[in-house]
Every structure is written in structure tokens, then in C-alpha cells.
């Protein structure tokens, strides 16, 4: 993030969803959220309905197990109520809520709860069926909306799977422009990176830094 106002705007509600089959499993979106949560200070609450998150992968995205408290709620309504409670607490680093439906009223409540706090609220949208993901276009009061889809990994000179790559689309940003980035997945500190061929192209081609994480 480049300046203080950008950091201030992080302390708000953000929406993250997967693309393609990721709308159902939300794997890349979960790691993207974990990477962001890893770089905050303080405990992280992860509120979900399906307990299928694999903790070692969060540790590999920079979020050690001692920092994460999982809350397993029965349905979306309970998830939202627990998320609001956690956001109101104020001294958490981040709160990640895995929800399917998020309407204007519910997101407004979360946004009001997080305002003025030092917590980042992430609504990780995850649906039962891929067809339900059309819901992602509905207006909410989240400050930004991201879609994270998987891309083929970085090519290696030998057989094997290289560093994972994502297509990270900023679908909506309040008072900002949409954009999409092709990025390498989180490292052990939760930092994303630009693919080498993009970062190392001639300086004239663009003002990119070596790392998008800053």
C-alpha cells in the first residue's frame, strides 16, 4: 500500500470470492484472505460453516496456528452475527467470514461494526453451487470486491509444479478503479509477488515494482 489513507481504507469490509470452481471450494480466495490477515497485528478470527480449511496451508500462507481462532457456526445467519460480534471487539487483526449470501443490510451492519476499528473484515463468499455465484454481482456495502481465480503455475525448467499463480481481479472499489493483476500466490509471510516475466520486463513498459506487496 502506498500511503496512509490506503492503509486506513483497509480497515473496512472487503469481499473476496473465487472464480470458476473456486466459487464452491474457495481455496485460492481463502489463501488470499489468509495472506492479508497474516500481515495484520493481533489474533485472527475465521468464522465458517464448513470446517474443511486445512490449517497447515494457512501456516504456509503466513498465518501460524496460534494466531487463528476458528468459529464454526451452523448457518449463514449465525456466521454474520458472530462476525459482527468479532468486528465490534476492535483489537483483532482480521475477521474472515465464509458466507454464501450477503445482502445490503447484512453487509451494512458489518461495515458499521468495523468502522473506526483497527480490524480488517473479509467476507469470503463461498456458495454451495457454482450457479449461485451470480449473487456476487448484487450490491453490498463492502469497500472493495475481489475475485481470485487460479492460473497455471509458473513454468519450471524441470517437471513439477512451480509457484502457484492467481488472477486477482479487483471487481469493485469504492471511489476507485477496477483492475486485474496476474500474481504469484502468498509466500510464508503472506506476501504476493509479481511473476518474474512481468517484473523483469524493460523499465519503459511500465512503472511496476518488483513486488506488489510493498
Amino acid at each position: 500500500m502506498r500511503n496512509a489513507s490506503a492503509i486506513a481504507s483497509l480497515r473496512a469490509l472487503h469481499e473476496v470470492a473465487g472464480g470458476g470452481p473456486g466459487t464452491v471450494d474457495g481455496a485460492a480466495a481463502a489463501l488470499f484472505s489468509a495472506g492479508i490477515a497474516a500481515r495484520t497485528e493481533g489474533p485472527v478470527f475465521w468464522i465458517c460453516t464448513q470446517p474443511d480449511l486445512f490449517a497447515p496451508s494457512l501456516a504456509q500462507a503466513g498465518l501460524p496456528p496460534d494466531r487463528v481462532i476458528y468459529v464454526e457456526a451452523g448457518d449463514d445467519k449465525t456466521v454474520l452475527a458472530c462476525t459482527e460480534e468479532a468486528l465490534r471487539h476492535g483489537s483483532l487483526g482480521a475477521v474472515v467470514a465464509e458466507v454464501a449470501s450477503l445482502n445490503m443490510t447484512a453487509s451494512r451492519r458489518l461495515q458499521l461494526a468495523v468502522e473506526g476499528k483497527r480490524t480488517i473484515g473479509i467476507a469470503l463468499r463461498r456458495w454451495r453451487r457454482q450457479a449461485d455465484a451470480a449473487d456476487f454481482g448484487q450490491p453490498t456495502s463492502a469497500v472493495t470486491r475481489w475475485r481470485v481465480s487460479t492460473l497455471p503455475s509458473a513454468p519450471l525448467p524441470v517437471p513439477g509444479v512451480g509457484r502457484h499463480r492467481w488472477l486477482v481481479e479487483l471487481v469493485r472499489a469504492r471511489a476507485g478503479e477496477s483492475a486485474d493483476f496476474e500474481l504469484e500466490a502468498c509466500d510464508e509471510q503472506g506476501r504476493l509477488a509479481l511473476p518474474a516475466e512481468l517484473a523483469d520486463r524493460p523499465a519503459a513498459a511500465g512503472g511496476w515494482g518488483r513486488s506488489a506487496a510493498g
Partner: protein
Amino acid sequence: MALAKAQILVPELVVNEAAPQADQEGLYRLALWILQRFSPIVAADPPDGIVIDTTGADHLHGGEEVMLEALVGRLAMSGVEARAAVADSWGAAHAFARYLAKPTFVADPGTGLSLLSPLPLEALRLPVAMAGDLRTLGFRTVGELHRQPRAPLALRFGPQLARRIDQALGEAAEPFDPVRPADQVDARRAFAEPIAAAETIARYIGKLVVDLCAALEERGLGARRLDLLVHRVDSRLQAVRVGMALPTRDVRRLTRLLCDKIETIDPGFGIEAMVLVAAIAEPLEMKQAVNSLMEAARPDVSGLVDTLANRIGGRAVYRIAAVASDVPERSVQRIPAMAPDTGTGWPDHWPRPARLLARPEPIETVALLPDHPPASFTWRGVRRRVRRADGPERVFGEWWKRDAELEAVRDYFRVEDDAGERYWVYRAGDGEDPATGSHRWFLHGIFG
């Protein structure tokens, strides 16, 4: 039978003095043990019973049947052979525990009469002499007695008989006096006029919490579990139980936790007394607050954890700790949310998937044996061609856990399809020796 006669019949008979007093004390201690673990309202029912009001407590243990099994199982482990039954009334549960339970019995609501009818007269908790007289008159079962007109029976045997029948059928109230440990910290308040409004209950909860916290502070204790006992004017007793992750005597936090549960209290015709009990209290020492000049204070989330745990259940709020096991599903375990930091992690030289399927799903593959990744696979009806793959990572079965894993082997591969979706698949077996596994392929996780 006289002792002398018994000794003649069995030459090496061991004789012990009966100790009714000690038996009763033991029963009382057992009731206290159940009070701390199962339900806030428990009473000893001498000579050989314990009565538990499970209203609102069974769901915390996974339902009535599971709770009874757990109770009987834990008693069996400590050498007490017990039978337990759940029914609509104390009288019915008393009878079922003694005549139907093997070793547990759960009566569906409203089935009291049909289940009681075939039981012998003694199931009604009648004095021995009265049961004998009834037998002389030709009565054998509860049902036969219930069908008789009441008046002649009451004339002959007094009001007790009719009352016992009504109590067993749940038609007459039967309050009981719950046990109370001698060193229990509590605060109580009786009302001149019965109260019923939620706001009034909340106000008095606030006052009770202040009293209780003062009493706890005097003894240097913090509450781990609070029971709010609500005495109604119709002598029914209701209980609200809240638990805390760490001992605390913070007035605001405890008031908030109890007030969240007001909606579960049914005031009926009014509440005449409320008692707030610290069911489990643990030492809580004064601590030096962290100075911000020396180090940053760690945010205290125990209040939030308590709020959420009391709302959705204590087991639903947890942390995950690493376990030294190579088998992926065994490498994690749930620990309480406020447990001390473990400081351990998992070895990170192999990437792990973000989502682990609860049960590995079989996939159809085209793969070269013994050690090639699949060239393509079909999962949930979609065929995917594998572009890149990494592996195998060989995981051996834990023979010290189960015999079936003595030679078991799993070979894990990370595979990536055309669209860039990455999956964690494994083959059961090493690809050569059928003893190590079925050589079928499974999908176990999804990478981000």
C-alpha cells in the same frame, strides 16, 4: 435371613456392617460430581438414586441418549454400576431406571402411562407395607391400579397412593431440593412481588453479578461456570448455564453473558427468587498489567470467545494445533480457543492444500505404475487432463495405531490441470505390492 443362617450356607462369607450414613454421604458426593459436569439442578435421592433435571442441559452433551450413555460410561469407569432413564416426570424416570433401563432408557414425551402400566406396583415408590397390602387385594401392575376409582383406594390407603400415581404420570408437581456444595459461592435475591419482564430480570441479573463478583474477589476466585437458578411461583426451577474460557470476575462481561440468555427463561406466572451460583470457580490472582513502555499488551479476546461460545456452543470455538503425524487428516487437532500458545507448526517443505476433503473421494485415473502421476483423472463427473504434477510424497501408515495400517502406503501428488486448477491426489499403495494398498486413486484436497 439371619446372619448365622447365611454363614452356615456359605462357609467363607465376608460380612460387612451396613453403613447407611456413609452410603448417603457417598451419594451426595456423586450428586455434586454430576452437578459440575452434567446439569445445574441435581439432587440426591436416597437410598440409591440421583435425580437430575436435564431440561436445557441435554443438548450440550449431544442429546438425551448420548448424555445418558456418557454418564453411565463415566460412572462405569470409576467402578459404579449405574442405570439411567429420562422421562417426563421424576416418578416415571425413577420407575424406568429401575425396571426398564439396560443400562439406559429414554422415554419419548407423552408415553408415560403406556410404559408405566405393565410395571409392578413397587415402581411407584410406595412404602413396602402398602405395596404388600395392595398385592393381597390382587393388584399386580401400575395399570391395574390406575384403572380403579380413586376414592375407595384413598379411603383405605390414605392420600399418598393417589399422589404417587399422579407424580409418576406428571400430573402433580414434585419439586426437589438441589444439592449445594458447602464451599459454593453464590448470591441470591428473593422478590416481594413476582417478576416476569425481561428488563426486570436483566436488572436483577446485574445486581446478582455485582454481589457474586464481590464474594469471589473476597476469596481470590474467578468463575469458570455460572448457573442462574430461577425459582418460579409454581415451584418450578429453571436454570441458565454459561461457561467462561478463563476464570473471570468481570461484572460487565458476566452480566452480558447472562443477559444474552434471558430469552431462554420462561417466567410463567412470575419469578419469586433468583440464585446465581459460581458452579466452577478457580483461583484468579491479581496480575501486574503489562506496561506499554516495556512491551505491547496482547489483546484480550477471552471475552469475545466466551460470548461466541455461549451463543453457539463451546466446541464450536477452537484453535488448531499441530500433531506430529505424517497422515494429513491426523496432523491437526482442535484445542480450546484460550489454551496457551503451542509454538509448534508443521514442516513446510511440501505445500499443503487449502481445503482438505473430510473423506478422500475416489477418482478414475489414467496413470502409469509404479511411480508416475496420473495423466488424466475424472472427479465428480468432470475429466481433467494433468498438465503438470509434482510428487510422489510417500506417507506410511501408522502401524502403532491400527493393525490395518501396518504396511499401508499413500503416494501423494500435486497435479495441475489445463485450467490451472491444482489438486492433491493420492494412490493407496506403493504401485507394486498389493499388500500396501488397493492401488486406487483418491482426491484429498484442493490447492489455492
